[in-house]
């Protein structure tokens, strides 16, 4: 239907409605919140435009940021805040019980970036409510990112062309994403449950490392798979979103890692928090601390995420002080090893919301547990998954870029692969009721 209508407005209406249906699939009630949030920011954008140049220009920005963050705090962090207050003050406020509206962390950030960009006069405010609604609700990335900036697709909201090669490439990208999510992240997820869930009484050192390695695989392929699907879907409809991942696991330092991991989030914090605070020109360490505290908190309303964020902050500070220079002098191998080592530790912090479990698990990883150093049955598991592990490794490193340079008919191969990926992922989805949605906390 989308393709058969020539009229852009019809297309926009259709896309917005499909997005609503898609959102309602998971959480019908909270669609009201999405519309509410979009409406507020639509008017804020217009108001900034109207009062531009006057002293009132700043008011809508402040009000918008305030309202958006209030929504986010109420719906995402109220339980966390009240829980902490209760422990701290020994009070007994009841924790409000409602489900976290899906994607709220993503769309509030998108609208904040829109209002901020309008304020900075980097984009013009969107005059059409329909078009703005479409931007906020675009179902491709609504649920699991990436955080799309209005500025990046402003031109395409007004005027986008459907190009056949774009649609074909979009299909390729979507199918790769689906394959990553279903055939890699979900398989790794099953292994993660086996090693990281439970009480770890008989977990051996080797199994603990393998478990967290599988969690690293799961979280990367899950999240980058969703981003691929979003980028692919966007392309099918004429939108070109920015890349969200750039082979993060080949990074050589923490700073390098965060240039490659969840790029849309780190650049959001860079542009709207870090630089306005003064960036590296003044209060560098305070700014880093604030940014990483917020990054941690954004990932979930629990202390372990905050510590996770601060853990990365510590690494980045150390790298800025001396570690970065040291690593540069050493062969690249050490950089990789350093990053992978600390990254795995950070994923332990990320996985367990309960801090005692974090220390429990880290204890086992470093040999303070009671169980064996190595459980032989892990070998059976590894041999059972050998080809899958090799494939996963090849997809986590830039094999694709290498192939791109050396294989001539790659575009055609990709088209065939896309269909194979689609069928394979469908089979695994049909066969498997095991399909946990990892990013629900965000």
């Amino acid at each position, binding site marked *: 239907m989308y393709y058969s209508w020539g009229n852009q407005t019809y297309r926009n209406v259709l896309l917005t409605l499909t997005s609503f249906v898609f959102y309602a699939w998971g959480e019908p009630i909270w669609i009201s919140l999405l519309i509410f949030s979009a409406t507020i920011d639509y008017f804020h954008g217009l108001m900034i435009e109207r009062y531009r140049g006057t002293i009132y220009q700043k008011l809508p920005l402040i009000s918008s940021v305030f309202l958006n963050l209030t929504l986010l705090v109420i719906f995402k962090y109220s339980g966390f805040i009240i829980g902490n207050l209760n422990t701290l003050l020994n009070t007994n406020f009841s924790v409000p019980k409602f489900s976290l509206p899906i994607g709220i962390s993503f769309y509030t950030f998108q609208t904040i970036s829109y209002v901020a960009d309008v304020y900075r006069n980097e984009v013009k405010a969107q005059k059409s409510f329909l078009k703005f609604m479409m931007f906020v609700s675009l179902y491709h990335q609504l649920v699991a990112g990436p955080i799309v900036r209005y500025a990046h697709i402003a031109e395409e909201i007004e005027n986008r062309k459907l190009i056949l090669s774009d649609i074909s490439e979009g299909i390729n990208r979507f199918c790769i994403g689906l394959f990553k999510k279903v055939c890699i992240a979900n398989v790794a997820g099953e292994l993660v449950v086996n090693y990281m869930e439970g009480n770890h009484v008989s977990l051996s050192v080797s199994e603990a490392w393998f478990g967290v390695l599988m969690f690293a695989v799961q979280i990367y392929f899950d999240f980058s798979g969703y981003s691929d699907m979003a980028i692919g879907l966007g392309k099918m409809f004429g939108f070109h979103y920015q890349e969200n991942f750039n082979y993060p696991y080949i990074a050589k330092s923490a700073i390098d890692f965060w240039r490659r991991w969840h790029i849309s989030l780190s650049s959001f914090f860079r542009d709207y928090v870090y630089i306005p605070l003064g960036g590296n020109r003044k209060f560098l360490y305070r700014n880093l601390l604030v940014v990483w505290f917020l990054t941690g908190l954004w990932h979930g309303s629990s202390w372990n995420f905050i510590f996770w964020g601060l853990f990365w902050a510590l690494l980045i500070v150390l790298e800025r002080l001396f570690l970065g220079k040291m690593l540069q002098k050493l062969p690249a191998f050490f950089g990789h090893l350093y990053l992978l080592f600390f990254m795995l530790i950070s994923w332990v912090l990320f996985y367990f919301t309960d801090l005692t479990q974090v220390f429990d698990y880290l204890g086992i990883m470093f040999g303070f547990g009671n169980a064996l150093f190595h*459980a032989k049955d892990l070998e059976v598991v590894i041999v059972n998954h050998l080809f899958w592990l090799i494939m996963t490794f090849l997809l986590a490193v830039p094999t694709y870029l290498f192939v791109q340079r050396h294989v001539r008919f790659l575009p055609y191969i990709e088209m065939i692969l896309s269909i194979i990926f689609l*069928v394979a992922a469908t089979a695994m989805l049909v066969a498997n009721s095991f399909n946990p949605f990892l990013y629900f906390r965000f």
Partner: protein
Amino acid sequence: MKRIILYIHVSFFIILLLAAGVGLLFAPKNTFSEREKRRLSRLPVFYLPNLAKGNYMDSLDNFTADHFPQRNWFLELADSLKSLKGIQKEGKKVYADVSSTDAIIEEDSSGLAIFKDTEQNRNSKGLVVSKGQAFHIFTNENSMAKDFAQALNAYPQKFKLRFFCAIVPTLGTYKIPKEYEYYANKELENIQEIHDALRNVEAIPIHEEMKKHLQEYIYYRTDHHWTALGAYYGYVAFCKKIGFEPQSIKEMPKKFVEGKFLGTHFLKTNDASLKANADTVFYWIPNTKEVALKWNGRKMEECPTFKLDSIEKNRYLVFLGGDEPFMQLTSKTVKNKRVILVIKNSYGNPFVSYLTAHYEQVLVLDYRYFKGSLSEIIKNYKVNDLLFLSGVFAANEPSHIKKIKKLIG
């Protein structure tokens, strides 16, 4: 040229999506999955409050997964893909994500089977298939041994009978793939823990008797139960404890169920080497000419001790016809007025018929499904002895322990 190929690619993708959609909407629907041995979900009825909560869409998702066009073909394909994940060294393969075999299955209002036990895998490293034999590895990580024993200990405080408890280990206790040797003792550790915590309940060391017969066919290869022969050695252990002379198995006619038996371990894994090593279900008919009655919800009605018809889907059902809430086996040849009550799960099914040689009445109660009053049964039938019988996995399932506690009221 490139343009044509692009067109083909895009159209092919759209056609696939449309075909799936059309198939889902219009193709005739199966109501039962032969392979999974379960009823498939039904199209959910539209109901506005459910829509608001998101339940409606969840049911719709389940429906889609259950009725996807060419579902069986996709299931086969998924199995092949899974086997491509790696190599099976010496035929060893781990299925880590199997659900608990002892989950209590209840049907919801729409007839869909639901697994009540959500705490799966608590004590397991998963299922390992080695050379056509499935092993369910018990880790004893979340031992519920004390809770289980305490649940039983409450019984002698309320009733004045002789109490026994028998916990059946799995094959892993005796024979385990070498990579899993670390877990070889875990079941016995757990059983010992139960035995030590029992008060006024006599423990029957079933595992010692079974150990003497490892070369025999005492466990199924593809199912989590013991065989009728394994159950016979369990019965011998019971006789030794209580002081009976066990009847010789050679004096009982040996029969077998026609056809191959592929049990729960196969159903969960669809493992090819298990399929190639399907089991045969043997059973021995006691010489006591017993009459079996079962409670049908209103009254006791006659039923066979060994059910032979319509058990093709699960040949283990030959024993007592499956898990009935309450049964009574009355021996025609034994007139000693002695009555035993066996409180059991499915491990008890091949076991109880042997007892008819020593008791005039053998009462069989499945604690998972029995809804009546235990005191009345014990009073009305004048029960002398009471035996708890369970496999080691079920004894460590919280939901089972809850049911045993509930039974006493």
